[in-house]
């Protein structure tokens, strides 16, 4: 019997060896692939090739995806995979040189910047667009037209005692407010809580959260007493089902629109979104060309995916940063 037992072991060992051999084979098979394009590049200077790995915020993803799509049309030999690990997840990969570019819906945090420095990663920060956070109610809500920043804080703050609309303004009905907000992992949530409640993550506990903004759209569209917030792009696509609340930060009520977000009058709920580029990677011609392409075409592509483009000078300024 002992003999047969050994045979089983041998059998399993063979399987393991086969599996490992497969792994071993695959690596060298991949290398010639990497070399081929380089030789081609030598032959023909203008032809770009290589790989630009990008990861990060799912908010910035649609813009970067559009850029990658258009860029690949011009330079079909450049491969640009774009990930959706979230701003924080993206930076984790960026600071250990796993990615060349990181999408971010907030500026890099001190901790992340320190990690980058430790690993010798130098980077440049480029603002690529504005995203306006919209505060929304149901279209059947006839009483709310605008809210001041203080009222928003009164409603959403961690120590909020607001239960009904009447608690916000005495002339409003005594009906219970139903609150909807993005999940706590999103950059949108971080930004709103920081701007309105003063501290990132500080918020009352009794709201309906969803990582999927489309769920929030459904919730607010189906509930007369709903109040919620999410990215401007989701409001634009659902204008017929939702009513955007004007925000009063002291200079009178302003509603979210491409114009008010771009000129900064829709405040404090419009935020810049970024890409971070590794400086060492920027030396590669394909990366440099891609980032250049990004800045030159942002004006046209950014609004197509529901975000607000920066002014021409800002993109020109970004271009200067790249060329340096």
């Amino acid at each position, binding site marked *: 019997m002992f003999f047969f037992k050994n045979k089983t072991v041998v059998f399993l060992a063979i399987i393991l060896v086969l599996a490992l051999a*497969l*792994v071993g084979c695959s690596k060298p098979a*991949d290398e010639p692939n990497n070399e081929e394009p380089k030789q081609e590049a030598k032959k023909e200077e203008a032809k770009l090739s290589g790989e630009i790995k990008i990861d990060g915020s799912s908010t910035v*993803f*649609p813009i970067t*995806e559009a850029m990658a*799509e258009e860029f690949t049309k011009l330079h079909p030999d450049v*491969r640009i995979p774009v990930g959706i690990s979230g701003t924080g997840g993206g930076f984790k990969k960026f600071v250990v040189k796993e990615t060349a570019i990181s999408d971010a819906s907030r500026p890099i945090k001190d901790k992340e910047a320190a990690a980058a420095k430790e690993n010798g990663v130098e980077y440049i920060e480029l603002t690529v667009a504005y995203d306006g956070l919209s505060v929304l109610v149901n279209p059947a809500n006839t009483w709310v037209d605008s809210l001041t920043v203080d009222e928003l804080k009164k409603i959403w703050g961690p120590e909020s005692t607001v239960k009904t609309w009447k608690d916000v303004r005495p002339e409003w009905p005594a009906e219970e407010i139903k609150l909807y907000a993005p999940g706590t992992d999103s950059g949108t949530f971080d930004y709103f809580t920081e701007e309105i409640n003063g501290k990132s993550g500080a918020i009352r506990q009794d709201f309906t959260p969803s990582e*999927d903004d*489309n769920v929030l759209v459904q919730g607010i569209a189906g509930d007369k007493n709903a109040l919620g917030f999410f990215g401007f792009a989701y409001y634009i696509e659902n204008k017929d089902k939702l009513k955007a609340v004007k925000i009063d930060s002291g200079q009178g009520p302003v509603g979210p629109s491409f114009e008010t977000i771009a000129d900064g009058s829709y405040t404090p709920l419009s935020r810049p979104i970024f890409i971070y580029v590794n400086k060492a990677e920027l030396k590669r011609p394909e990366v440099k060309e891609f980032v250049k392409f990004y800045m030159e075409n942002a004006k046209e592509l950014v609004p197509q995916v529901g975000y607000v483009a920066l002014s021409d000078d800002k993109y020109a300024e970004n271009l200067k940063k790249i060329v340096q």
Partner: protein
Amino acid sequence: MSPEGINNIKRRNITNTVFHGLLFLSTLIGIMFLIVLIAQILIKGLGWLDWDFITNFPSRFPKKAGIKSALVGTIWVISFTALFSFPLGVGTAIYLEEYSKKSWYNRLLQINISNLAGVPSIVYGMLGLAVFVKLFNFERSILSASLTLTLLILPVIIVASQEALKSVPNSLKEGSYALGMSKWQTITGVVLPFALPGILTGTILALSRAIGEAAPLIMVGAFGYVAFLPKGPMDYFTTLPIQIFNWTSRPQSEFQNIAAAGIIVLLILLLSANAVAIILRNKYQKRI
């Protein structure tokens, strides 16, 4: 018969009818939701499903967007998963059923395997990230993804294969031994052919589960936008569930529709996998 006995029969008949109805109703509820779900997906997605949808790369324009890279990625990942998980799973099941002795160590092994089948898939994603992506340095590749999915479905394959092996009648094995066959000959000549339909069904159902997974693959590092086909197992990838997840979270309603079209393709893929399972099972059952 006494009147009491007749009453009793009546009552028992009523109980029978009531429970018959209730059980039918519960079946109906499950099926109804399934029909509603499928109908909704078909209504939304069918109009978007055409050859271009299969052969185009993803795009920011819903009309031009396709699932080429996701479909090919899914096929790559699932083929490697099958390659790894089938021999490992069946091997383990044969060891546990045929060779291992009933010691405390083996009982512990058995309990562990059953428990592993209930671990949420995201946990396997984290494990895959730590072990395959970082420790083994396989990076964000098809290989890392298939190995992670292998771990995920291995317990299911082992348990299903064990059940199939258990169902082999002892008389057949004893007959084999009586003819002077060794244990290994008995396993390959008698036990495995008899158990194969059950093993294959279990494996293909487990693989179907793996096809539908998105969460662990996002952990392992599948990309959201991939506009090229993988060149080998070490290449980057995306899969159908990830592409669908990505589209459903977009603000534009057209993206919800192409997500539905993607779901239809995924369903076709799953149903054909199940069909293969049934055909294989029937084929091997006939042989016996």
